[in-house]
């Protein structure tokens, strides 16, 4: 092939014609159809010449490329607005300020004329904005934690993994060792959370005051105050180097000592747990920001070795883990957390030797509010829940906006004539857009004000779903948020109506023809309804699924009896609320023995109360948060792979008390301490016995040293919340562990009053034996339900979200139904005259909605199925997602929708045709 251009024939016919297509771009068509108005001729001619020129100078491929590029830049959306040469007399394109009062006046008149329309619009928007506002407040609150500290980006928590688990604590000697052995750290501060009752001794006139523990107490090293800064009103941090000293916040000091000058409080005594006497050596001002570290009384760390606290808090053993031990680290300038993490590896080797299972990582302070596994035991927020909430807020707002758009376009027919007149009198389409934006703004502002008024009652209504610290107050951030919502809503909700209405051609609308572009907008409205109902259906299905799963979880046969059983609590909080993890249990056991005797006495006393059927001592209820396991279970001398087993402790009464079934062998024998064990059916299977009765008499390895013969097999019961699978269970009698009393109440038909007196009697016995301990009790079914507190919250949240989305969708539907039936009044009249029946007309009016909801159901079902499948993965035992849920949700949605529009449809269908036909 030679060159395409030769000199003899300057413009060879086939190639001087500009390309019609270029890589799928229809250049010629674009140039013809999207050319700026009035320039078609000259541009096409010029482009033809330019193409020839480019062909000559650049060659064919570059010419084509240039040509296409030029076409794309010349066509309408990209080219400048049409040159103004033809209508110079319009000076301001966008809007005339003088027209604004008129816009608002017309908007106001319109709203008062169509009260239902305005009401539905404002109410729907207000609900959406209110939900958004509440969620905004929650999210802002949760993200406000610990963001006010100086140097907060250098403060870190330590996420420690010991013995293969995250325990939200660190080994006692770790802080000191870190301080000794690691570099790059500016400050290390160890602290212990501690719970104790407080007694303020009275002076010679006053009585002593007593306060219960409220979780505000910590035992800290003085360095704690180098990491977290407080303003010292009196005293200083060095006073915390001495044993038996305590620092209070001003508020706490006021609570204990009244309105005294901080300097006068110094030197006063406080008794903790009636036995630890400490002296106040400092007072600091309270923090104003939200914090997870909002302790208000700090005992000096030096107090631990100098008091009985050393029994509870081990600071020298790496193998014992106090759940209360924490450490806070402030890095030196320019040190990266990864540099410290690297040092933790040899650190772990040094202190744990070859034993694996220790690892540690620095985690920023700011993230500790969202993680259970480090940073103390304050109330934590869940990031997934927060993100879900934000998504829900977004969806609800979008639904409300969709409603708005839907209703505005439906109503636009009625405004067509007004727009025609405006255009004839010189209104440009941007100025009409401004008019509709100002109308939308009016409605949005009304909705925002209504939403702001509703927030406080709404927050009271859902108080249990909202964290305690969330309050609604008008401050700059909230105002900014509301402003943002207003602007966003106005823009999104006003955009479509403004654009559509601005485009009306006055010549057509003034003639009264308003249905010319009917079909297009109808599609949009239908699409929006499908969208709304898709979201509503997702929430309805989610709500159904969560409801059915929770019904299953709460009412499933757990394999043991749960009703009329009271567990007496309080014992576990005796000293520190901490548990020991590790092998060195001797100290613990001695202490427990002292208590075991008392508990036995108490159990006997309670047994004698009238109305008590049975009393047992146990380590925990069959289903409980507590868990004690052993990973090396198996038969003696077996070389099979070891299995995980879980321990329950109780004597021969344990199995009958909870009405468990012994399916092979026999129950434990009385008066026999820990010689034999019972195992669960699953355990027997896991040990390799297909026939469970074969397991009887075999010997079970249940700890590194102990071997027990199997006395019997009990049928399976659930020992964990349904989120986790039950382990193979072993029931053994060990009096030292059984320090919880469970009481079965005799009669079923006991009245509330009788129950109260019974519990009072039990409390009296308790006070005789444990005068220093607070009495607490819980019903077993309540404490089982409390294991699902998070899920129950999720359920309520989903139900609320469902309620709001369905409500908003129905409002939109109602508005549409009103308008469409109004528009079809005459059609209905004619149909009736020609013999249509009332039911026939109702079917005609409703069948489209049913169809739309069915489409929405088709879209929503897979989406909801996917989402709920994900949620159900969090459960080890779950209901199946049956198809009926989806059918039910669809039926419910259709039912609600028909209820919404049915009344309108009926009204329209029952109307007297004479009347409707006469209106003209």
């Amino acid at each position, binding site marked *: 092939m030679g060159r395409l251009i030769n000199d003899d024939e300057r413009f060879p016919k086939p190639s001087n014609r500009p390309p019609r297509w270029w890589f799928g771009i229809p250049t010629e068509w674009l140039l013809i159809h999207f050319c700026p108005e009035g320039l078609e001729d000259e541009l096409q001619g010029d482009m*033809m010449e330019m193409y020839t020129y480019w062909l000559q100078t650049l060659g064919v491929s570059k010419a084509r490329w*240039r040509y296409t590029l030029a076409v794309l830049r010349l066509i309408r959306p990209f080219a*400048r607005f049409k040159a103004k040469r033809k209508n110079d007399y319009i000076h301001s394109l966008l809007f005339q300020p003088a027209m604004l009062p008129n816009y608002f006046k017309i908007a106001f008149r319109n709203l008062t004329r169509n009260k239902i329309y305005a009401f539905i619009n404002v109410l729907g928007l207000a609900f959406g904005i209110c939900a958004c506002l509440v969620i905004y407040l929650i999210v802002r609150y949760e993200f406000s934690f610990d963001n006010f500290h100086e140097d907060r980006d250098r403060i870190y928590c330590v996420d420690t993994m010991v013995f293969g688990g995250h325990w939200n604590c660190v080994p006692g000697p770790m802080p000191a060792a870190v301080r000794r052995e690691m570099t790059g750290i500016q400050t290390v501060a160890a602290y212990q959370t501690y719970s104790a009752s407080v007694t303020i001794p009275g002076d010679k006139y006053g009585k002593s005051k007593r306060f219960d523990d409220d979780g505000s107490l910590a035992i800290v090293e003085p360095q704690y105050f180098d990491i977290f800064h407080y303003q010292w009103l009196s005293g200083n941090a060095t006073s915390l180097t001495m044993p038996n000293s305590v620092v209070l916040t001003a508020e706490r000091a006021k609570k204990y000592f009244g309105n005294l000058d901080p300097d006068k409080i110094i030197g006063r005594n406080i008794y903790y747990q009636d036995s630890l006497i400490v002296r106040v050596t400092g007072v600091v001002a309270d923090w104003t920001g939200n914090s997870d570290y909002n302790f208000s009384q700090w005992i000096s760390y030096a107090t631990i070795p100098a008091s009985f606290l050393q029994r509870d808090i081990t600071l020298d053993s790496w193998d014992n883990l106090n759940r209360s031990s924490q450490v806070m680290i402030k890095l030196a300038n320019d040190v990266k957390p990864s540099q410290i993490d690297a040092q933790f590896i040899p650190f772990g080797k040094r202190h744990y030797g070859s034993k694996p299972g220790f690892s540690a990582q620095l985690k920023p302070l700011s993230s500790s509010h969202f993680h259970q596994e480090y940073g103390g035991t304050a109330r934590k927020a869940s990031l997934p829940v927060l993100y879900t909430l934000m998504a829900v807020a977004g969806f609800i707002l979008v639904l409300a906006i969709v409603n708005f758009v839907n209703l505005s376009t439906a109503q636009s027919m009625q405004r067509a004539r007004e727009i025609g007149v405006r255009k004839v009198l010189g209104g440009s389409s941007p100025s009409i857009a401004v008019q509709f934006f100002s109308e939308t703004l009016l409605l949005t502002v009304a909705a925002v004000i209504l939403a702001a008024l509703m927030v406080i009652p709404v927050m009271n209504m859902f108080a249990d779903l909202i964290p305690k610290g969330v309050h609604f107050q008008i401050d700059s951030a909230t105002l900014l948020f509301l402003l943002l919502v207003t602007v966003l809503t106005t823009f999104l909700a006003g955009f479509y109506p403004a654009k559509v209405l601005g485009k009306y051609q006055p010549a057509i609308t003034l003639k009264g023809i308003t249905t010319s572009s009917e079909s297009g907008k109808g599609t949009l409205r239908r699409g929006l309804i499908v969208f709304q109902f898709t979201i509503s259906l997702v929430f309805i299905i989610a709500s159904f699924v969560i409801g059915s799963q929770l019904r299953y979880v709460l009412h499933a046969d757990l394999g043991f009896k749960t009703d009329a059983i009271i567990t007496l609590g309080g014992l576990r909080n005796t000293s520190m609320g901490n548990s020991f993890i590790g092998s060195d249990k001797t100290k613990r056991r001695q202490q427990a023995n002292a208590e075991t005797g008392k508990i036995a006495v108490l159990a006997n006393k309670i047994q004698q109360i009238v109305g008590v059927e049975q009393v047992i001592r146990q380590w925990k209820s069959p289903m409980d948060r507590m868990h004690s396991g052993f990973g090396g279970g198996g038969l003696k001398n077996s070389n099979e792979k070891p299995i995980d087993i879980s321990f329950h402790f109780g004597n021969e009464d344990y199995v009958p008390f909870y009405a468990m079934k012994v399916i092979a062998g026999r129950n434990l024998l009385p008066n026999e301490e820990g010689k034999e064990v019972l195992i669960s059916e699953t355990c027997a299977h896991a040990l390799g016995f297909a026939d469970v009765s074969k397991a009887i008499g075999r010997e079970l390895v249940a700890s590194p040293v102990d071997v027990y013969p199997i006395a019997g097999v009990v049928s399976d019961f659930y020992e964990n919340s349904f989120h986790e699978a039950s382990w193979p269970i072993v029931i053994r009698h060990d009096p030292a562990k059984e320090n919880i009393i469970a009481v079965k109440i005799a009669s079923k038909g006991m009245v509330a009053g009788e129950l109260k007196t019974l519990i009072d009697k039990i409390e009296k016995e308790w006070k005789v034996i444990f005068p220093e301990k607070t009495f607490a009790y819980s019903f077993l079914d309540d404490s089982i339900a409390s294991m699902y507190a998070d899920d129950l919250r999720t359920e309520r949240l989903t139900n609320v979200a469902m309620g709001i989305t369905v409500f908003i969708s129905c409002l939109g539907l109602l508005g549409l139904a009103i308008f469409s039936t109004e528009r079809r009044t005459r059609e209905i009249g004619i149909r009736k005259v020609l013999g249509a029946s009332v039911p026939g007309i109702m079917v005609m009016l409703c069948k489209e909605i049913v169809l739309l909801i069915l489409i929405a159901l088709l879209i929503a079902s897979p989406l909801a199925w996917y989402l709920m499948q994900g949620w159900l993965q969090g459960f080890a035992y779950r209901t199946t997602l049956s198809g009926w849920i989806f059918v039910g949700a669809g039926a419910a949605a259709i039912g609600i929708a028909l209820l919404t529009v049915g009344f309108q449809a009926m009204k329209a269908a029952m109307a007297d045709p004479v009347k409707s036909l006469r209106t003209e």
Partner: protein
Amino acid sequence: MKRAFLGELEEVVLLTVAALQESAYCASITQTIDQQMGRDISFPTVHKTLQRLEEKGFVSSLMGGATAERGGRQKRLFTVTAAGQRALMECRLVRAQLWEQIPTPVLQLWGV
């Protein structure tokens, strides 16, 4: 001193319109700039510049004769208005003034 502002590109296009006289239309202007100034300029840019110049009142336009090479389509012919002439001359004056301010030895060094 208020003066209608003329951008560099606008100045070049306006000068070309003046230079081409009767045959100044968008395609020819683009080609002239491309050839004579060796400046890679795109057609739409010139088109927009011309529109802008017309809005500012520096050029006026009327539809002119069609030729075969442009498929019988009319062209928009541009002429420089009085305001355009003034603007161009002012531009030239300002530049000349600046040129004169360069010291003669420097100019000699440059070989001017």
